[in-house]
């Protein structure tokens, strides 16, 4: 038994050290470290093209890294690929199961692919049908299922062999809010049972559900940590919020102020990002005067706490500078 200093001293569910991948001259992933502990929900964020998909493909073992090492439950992903693949479960963003097979048949196929014995295959398929509430549609064709059921089936297929790590690529994209919430409840339950879960997502509110986050940009991790810790870090560029009935009228005038960096309009409000290092009190006076001069007399104006998106935007600006 190997032990190493990871999360809580145990072997992490997955740990990637300094992995890189180039496609021709394009560096898709540039020396990235990622470790997910058992029982942890880890969020990987980033725009399309930031390197998320390449990273996930390397972690799943479907793409060999040019450099660095990946271990799943202590098993080397590159050297012992078969054993490592037996320890991961992967749910693709798109439907990747078989539409002309029934729910049960898809599960049976997966049990066969993972080499489960007959008895274990039966109990695990039973478990998946019960746990994911797929029993009622067990005999329905995969392509006849609503999106939420398809995602649950994909999840069931990925969990059949009781993996150490679960990869969920954009698991809630296209789902309605209720189904999203249900899926997140499920993700927490699975994490509590001791699986390490790596989620990619576009939704900032979902990023807050994760235990830890990593934000990728241009192939590198530019921010990482627990969501609360990331939010608690003071920003160089303060944010003001202006609430007024017709605040759109003063938007252009405010944008011309030298202290204002960017204005994000919302319903009945403007979020005003000031330039880094601006004195907040002086800026509030200037903004209030300008707003009043443009008809927003009963405006409420105050400094607000940054959202995760603000934090990330600030980080990306730092990287760009």
């Amino acid at each position, binding site marked *: 038994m190997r032990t190493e200093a990871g999360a809580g001293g145990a072997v992490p569910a997955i740990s990637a050290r300094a992995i890189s991948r180039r496609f021709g001259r394009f560096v898709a992933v540039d020396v990235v470290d990622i470790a997910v502990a058992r029982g942890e929900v880890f969020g990987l964020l980033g725009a399309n093209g930031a390197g998320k998909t390449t990273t996930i493909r390397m972690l*799943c073992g479907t793409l060999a890294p040019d450099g660095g090492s990946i271990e799943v439950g202590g098993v080397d992903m590159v050297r012992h690929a078969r054993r490592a693949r037996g320890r991961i*479960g992967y749910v693709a963003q798109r439907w990747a199961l078989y539409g002309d097979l029934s729910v049960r048949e898809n599960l049976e196929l997966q049990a066969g692919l993972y080499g489960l014995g007959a008895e274990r295959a039966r109990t695990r398929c039973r478990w998946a049908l019960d746990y994911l509430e797929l029993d009622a549609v067990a005999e329905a064709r995969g392509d006849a299922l609503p999106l939420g059921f398809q995602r649950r089936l994909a999840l069931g297929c990925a969990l059949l062999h009781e993996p150490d790590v679960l990869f969920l690529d954009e698991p809630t994209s296209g789902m309605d809010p209720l189904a999203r919430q249900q899926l997140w409840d499920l993700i927490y339950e699975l994490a509590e049972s001791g699986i390490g879960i790596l989620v990619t997502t576009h939704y900032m509110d979902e990023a807050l559900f994760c235990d830890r986050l990593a934000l990728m940009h241009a192939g590198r991790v530019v921010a990482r940590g627990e969501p609360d810790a990331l939010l608690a870090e003071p920003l160089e560029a303060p944010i003001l919020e202006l609430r007024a009935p017709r605040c759109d009228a003063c938007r252009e005038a405010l944008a011309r102020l030298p202290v204002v960096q960017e204005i994000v309009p919302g319903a009945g409000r403007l979020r005003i990002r000031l330039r880094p290092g601006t004195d907040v009190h002086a800026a509030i006076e200037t903004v209030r005067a300008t707003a009043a001069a443009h008809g927003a007399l009963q405006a409420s104006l105050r400094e607000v706490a940054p959202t995760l998106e603000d934090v990330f935007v600030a980080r990306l600006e730092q990287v760009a500078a």
Partner: protein
Amino acid sequence: MKLQRVRAVALKETRHLLRDPGSLAMMVLMPVMLLFIFGYAIRLDVLEAPIGVFQEATDGVSGELTAHLDASRAFRVSARYDNRRALGDALQAGHIWAGIVIPHDFARELARGDARIQLLLDGVDANTARLLRNYARTMIGEYALRQGAARPPLVLEERVWFNEARESRYAILPGVIALVMAVMGALMTSLTIAREMELGNLVMLCTTPLSRTEFLCGKLAPYLLIGLLDVLVAAFVTTTLFDVPLRGSLLALVSVSTLFLLVVLMQGALISMVAGNQMLASQMAMVSTFLPALLLSGFVFAVQNMPRLLEYITYAVPARYYVTLCKAIFLKGVGPLLLWTEVVALVAVLLLLAIATVRRAARLGLLP
């Protein structure tokens, strides 16, 4: 390689087939249909060919010769003409395939021992013209002997072995089975991997411990069974409906068919991966099997008569070996052991294709 994973893939593939009865029916019925089309369409012998006769004199001897030709299985005197021009026009219009002109002094000259008659042939279909000429020659010779002509000092005694009745369909149908299986085998598997690439299933398969050999074996297994079923149905139709004898053993036929099917199924799988989409893959499978199997297999056109370069190319056509084996098993009743060179050649082609296919499968992202 773990048998359980192969079985899982094979079971899944079988379920795809059962869910798609249209395609399944096509795979089983198409060979029979092609067998009928080719069995009836390709005839290399001539039966009751319509010929025209112009008798310059209406004497009994000329009439007797005409009746002699008409009585044969090869010819049927469909029209008589009273001048050369009308006969020529009929030949040009295609109403008759050949014309015979019996001169006015035929009876006298025959008595003198120096008679001549004219045979006019439609050379547009050179093969038929040649057949008609040979038939006519034989029959005129027979007639002359009957008229008391001296036997030539040297006579060729011919015996046609393995196809005593010289029925062309005996020679053709075993070849048709080879042609049909070449096309069907490659066509069936050409769709299967391309479909998984199109639908994105490989994304999922690549994260499982499935290896590419397990994947390929599982994919090909159900199609091998369908192919063998096709061979049995084709053999049944050939022997019962077309009366072609199966002189060799069924086991021999099934064994060499298994070998050949593995070759074409593998070819289809390789095409499927190279093409990457079902449309292109099926077209590539059709072209790469049908044309070589039709033209370069010795199925209709003997390989030995081809230009040297083309003959060398035929060595790379797997159907060539299967055609030889099929004909030999059906007509000569010999086993694959006597034709071991063909068997070895097929095994060699299979090994080469298998290596190429497994190598290409590396790009799918499955485990080695």
